[in-house]
């Protein structure tokens, strides 16, 4: 499953974002986009390995109930 996730993600990056290499963006912009991409990778990998991340709906429910 993890292999599939990684494979699809890299395929997506190559298909859709190859032009990012050609067009120059500022360093700050690149760092933000890389961070966004990495964090989503981490989330997906933690899902595949069944790491427990607090479920958002439960947290919100607790906040609203208070």
């Amino acid at each position, binding site marked *: 499953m993890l292999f599939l996730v990684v494979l699809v993600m890299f395929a997506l990056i190559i298909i859709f974002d190859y032009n990012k290499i050609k*067009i120059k963006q500022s360093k700050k*912009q690149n760092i933000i986009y890389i961070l*966004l991409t990495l964090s989503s990778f981490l989330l997906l990998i933690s*899902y*595949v390995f069944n790491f427990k991340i607090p479920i958002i*709906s439960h947290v919100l*429910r607790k906040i609203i109930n208070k």
Partner: protein
Amino acid sequence: MNKQLLTEKQIIVLIILFLFGSSVVIGIDINSEIGQDAWISLILSFVFNIPLVLIFGYIINKFPQKNIYQIIDILFGKLTAKILISLFLIHILYLGSIVLRNFSEYVEITTLSETPLLPIMMSLILISVYLSKSKIKTLGIFGNIVLAILLVTISITLILSFSIFKFDNIKPILNHSINSIFKSSFKVFMLPFSELIVMLGIADLFDFKNPSKTYLKGIIFTGIILDLILIRNITVIGIPLLKDSFFASYQATRILQLGEFLTRVEGLITINFVLAGIVKITIFIISLSKGVAYLTKNKDYTKTIFPVSLLMLGICPFLFDNVVDLFDFAPIFGIYAIPIQVILPIIIFLFCILKKEKKLIYLD
């Protein structure tokens, strides 16, 4: 007419598909609470939506071809604008993830029961990313085709269900208290109708003369279609069965058939939901990527499409435990959504009026 902008007709089509996409969720919520009076509640929720839509129209009219991020920046100054835009972006990222999860759950439950959620979510996001990366006109044309398919399938299911309509199922009318009907319609108004604010994020791609009229046309047409669908569901399978089903339309069309020639009509409903869902997720992605591009001062929003779509996908599995949790959470999310989906547009509207009184010119 600018060829890179959406025409009035295309905007109406996108509004219809955007709202229709969420009917997967609303079907269950109103049926579970007020039974056969659900169709009245649906009409009321559209009435609630009219003032909000007029506010959206007013804002777009004041700032033609500007999106909500640019408008907030013009009205509130840099620091406040950044905070407001960030809050708005977090909200629509979360909302978009919920929508993606809804459709993935729907596909998993009705069609691909042996497939894990992740590949389904990936496939949906893949198509949406491709659509978002294409020019906005592509989305407009895709929307036209999807609406045509949608109308044909709805007509087929309505015609096929005529013979098994039981109008006794919608009686007694107004059996529930006005209070509970209003309460239910407010929930439907919050999710999905006030979600239309997401479309303000791509308002710079709109080309229309009378925004309020366009929005009104869109919601009235959607209201008629959704009410017809709801009445069909109630009259075909009745309230007790509807209460037990997560996806009412799918359940209602399962029993439809034309002799032994045409059976399994429910497949058409799945096609409807998935196609409308793709359009809806694409609108979320474009709106979100425009916001992130605006915050990071990138003029080309297509560069941010991929990171934001991935993040949407990453959040998706952690939203709910299962589909029951999803439907339990929907009404609670309505409360959480009020500040962004209702209060924020009202504040923007008030600021527009105040600034107008001060005779400030905000357009170049």
